[in-house]
């Protein structure tokens, strides 16, 4: 699936990020092409979420540069909202808005942020709900859904903004195996349509199956990156080996 | 009687009174009570002491309308001695001591130049008063006045100055007294309206039902006050113009 010679759409150059004394990212460089699917794996606390949060400017970086589809993210005059229209993000903890129904959750941002036409948005939202196989839940509140269902709504909500890049942060970590399956299927569908995807996951098999490139992070650095086959079958770095060894 | 025995036991007489009622009773900044009624209380203390054969101390218990009957009934004080107007309804609840010791009617104070000829002229108009004054309800009910009642005299006075009401109502003799003693000219722009007093209510000392001895002793004391002119003298001392009631009583008991 890898599109060789394609234009890079997300470029990180030597990105550093500290929380107070703690240096969390110690020089991260990566480059993701249009329509590429990239997985980031690594132990807990190694900075995976922080990378994603830096990319859509939820967390400011201390040094280095990030460029997303031509937008310089660490430009002081950055229009954050313009950036976030192009970069969708789905969180581990779903973060649906509990006071709105499923359909409203999906339609809110396109209507209120992009000021799009209600009829269009509604049509698109319904189509997305169908895609995540939740059409019959459109009037339910998030509190009435199971975890996997909520996660799928969160994905649909992000997609309804028509982003160019989608980021998924451990979206299956708190789910049971069956539901994990449902969510992964949804992500696979999204990826199959040619959207650029960056995903942080603990599901090694899934990462292997879906990615064009796998990055392994440890203690704020990218230790190794490779195509999935070589990465899993023939890891180079000792830390990667130790990690893959522990993961059942 | 029980209460008199208690007074004797403790060598102390406790009196419920409104301590915020100048110049009848008021506290100075050291907390000492002063005023016309305080003078009368002192005299009463001496006379009661003779009755029980002991030197008595006097203790003032500050009261509010909400608690004075309770305090009397439950023995927190031996009597109520304040500007308590005698009404038939109240007579059912407490024992007033006869003869009543004083009387007052309502007086109106306004800015100079306000012409009020009869009580009908104030119908529907706002009049400032003290909360707990016995004039409030009759004025409202019988004369259609809008009473605007505050907790302290300063507030009542301030409200009249601010024009929140066209007049203030209070005991007529109190109003006279304060104009007579107004050395600083605080009230130079104000005057007392000359209206017929629609009622002059007698003030009574009140005790609990059932102690005839105490009642008798107090009755003797008030009788003596009228006969000797003690009430009239004390009132004059505090700047009051004694009411007609006092002179009537003096005549009545002098003859006996």
């Amino acid at each position, binding site marked *: 699936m890898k599109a060789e010679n394609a234009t890079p759409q997300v470029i990180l150059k030597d990105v550093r990020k500290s929380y107070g004394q703690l240096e969390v990212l110690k020089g991260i460089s990566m480059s993701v092409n249009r329509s590429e699917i990239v997985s980031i794996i690594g132990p807990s606390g190694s900075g995976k979420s922080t990378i994603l949060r830096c990319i*859509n400017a*939820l967390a400011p970086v201390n040094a280095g540069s990030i460029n997303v589809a031509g937008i310089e993210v660490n430009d002081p005059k950055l229009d*954050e*909202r313009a950036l*976030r*229209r192009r970069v*969708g*993000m789905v*969180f581990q*903890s779903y*973060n*649906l*808005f*509990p*006071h709105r129904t499923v359909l409203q959750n999906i339609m*809110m*941002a396109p209507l*209120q*942020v*992009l000021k799009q036409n209600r009829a269009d948005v509604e049509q698109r939202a319904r189509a997305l709900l169908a895609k995540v196989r939740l059409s019959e839940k459109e009037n*339910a*509140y*998030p*509190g*009435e859904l199971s975890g996997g269902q909520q996660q799928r709504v969160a994905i649909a*909500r*992000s997609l309804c*903004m028509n982003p160019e890049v989608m980021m998924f942060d451990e979206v299956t970590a708190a789910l049971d195996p069956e539901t994990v399956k449902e969510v992964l299927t949804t992500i696979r569908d999204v990826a199959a349509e040619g959207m650029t995807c960056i995903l942080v996951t603990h599901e090694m098999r899934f990462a292997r199956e879906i990615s064009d490139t796998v990055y392994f992070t440890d203690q704020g650095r990218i230790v190794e990156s490779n195509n999935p086959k070589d990465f899993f079958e023939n890891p180079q770095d000792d830390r990667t080996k130790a990690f893959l060894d522990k993961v059942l | 009687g029980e209460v008199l025995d208690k007074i004797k036991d403790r060598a102390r007489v406790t009196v419920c009174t409104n301590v915020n009622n100048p110049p009848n009773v008021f506290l100075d900044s050291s907390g000492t009570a002063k005023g016309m009624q305080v003078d009368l209380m002192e005299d009463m203390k001496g006379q009661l002491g003779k009755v029980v054969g002991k030197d008595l101390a006097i203790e003032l218990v500050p009261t509010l*309308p*909400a*608690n004075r*009957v*309770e305090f009397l009934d439950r023995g927190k004080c031996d009597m109520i001695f304040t500007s308590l107007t005698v009404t038939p*309804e*109240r007579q*059912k*609840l*407490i024992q007033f001591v006869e003869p009543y010791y004083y009387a007052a009617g309502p007086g109106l104070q306004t800015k100079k130049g306000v012409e009020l000829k009869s009580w009908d002229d104030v119908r529907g*108009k*706002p009049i400032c008063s003290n*909360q*707990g004054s*016995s004039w*409030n*309800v009759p004025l409202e*009910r019988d004369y259609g006045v809008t*009473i*605007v*009642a*505050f*907790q302290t005299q300063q*507030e009542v006075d*301030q409200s009249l100055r*601010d*024009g*929140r*009401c*066209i007049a203030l109502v209070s005991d007529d003799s109190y109003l006279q007294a304060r104009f007579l003693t107004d050395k600083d000219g605080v009230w130079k722009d104000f005057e007392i309206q000359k209206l017929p007093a629609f009622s002059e209510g007698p003030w009574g000392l009140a005790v609990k039902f059932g102690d005839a001895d105490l009642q008798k002793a107090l009755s003797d004391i008030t009788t003596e006050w009228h006969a000797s002119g003690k009430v009239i003298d004390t009132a004059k001392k505090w700047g009051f113009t004694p009411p007609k009631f006092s002179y009537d009583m003096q005549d009545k008991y002098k003859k006996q």
Partner: protein
Amino acid sequence: MELIAQFFEELYHRTGWNFSVLYNAWEAKKYVNGIYIALELALWGLLGAMIIGALCCFLRLVRFAPLRWLVTAYIEFFRNTPGLAQLYFLFFGLGSYFQLSTYGQNGEPPFLSPFKFVVIGLSLQYGAFVAEILRAGIEAVPKTTKEAAEALGYGRWAALYHIVMPLAFRISLPALGNNMAQIVKSTAMAYAIAVPEALYVAHEIWTEHFNVIEMMNVVLLTYLGMMWIFTLIVRLIERWLHVPGMGR
């Protein structure tokens, strides 16, 4: 009505229990009017407090620091001093100085009646409390929810308006309900500046008849009744705003 009046008059003559408000038409009218005034004070005070509280809550989020300090000073001052003393300050301080409640030459009604002063006093005092409650509510909205809004491209104020405030308001409802009950009880301070609400009238009546115990019982029932009404209203609002999965 007639029968009730007769019964209580009879009761008085037989037993000495003097519920004069229940048979004396003039007093009954005044007392009912007193209850009406108390309710009206509570309603207006509540409205004022909510408006001031919400306004302060917003002003505190503004980035201009002196404005924030000013609002904080207001809140701290009004939360930490007796409401009665505040009322005196408004009424005899500002009111006297600016001649706000003076009758005109020809008896024109004053600019602000004592009633309006109480409404202003209640609003200012409880507005400070509402501001605090709402702030706590906003802080209780999970950070992840706020981030989700940001990631969807919501600006600061849009996120506040569409997502944070609706949630904060629901979270704050129980505390706001308590506050409301407190306002109902505080209407009694109106008696200090001669607004003839229920307690003021009761006071007048027991001064006249010496029936303090009876009137205290009447006052107790009156307030329990009013609180009950307001509790019902809060319940209704809670039910109306209820969202499945939030709270019980």
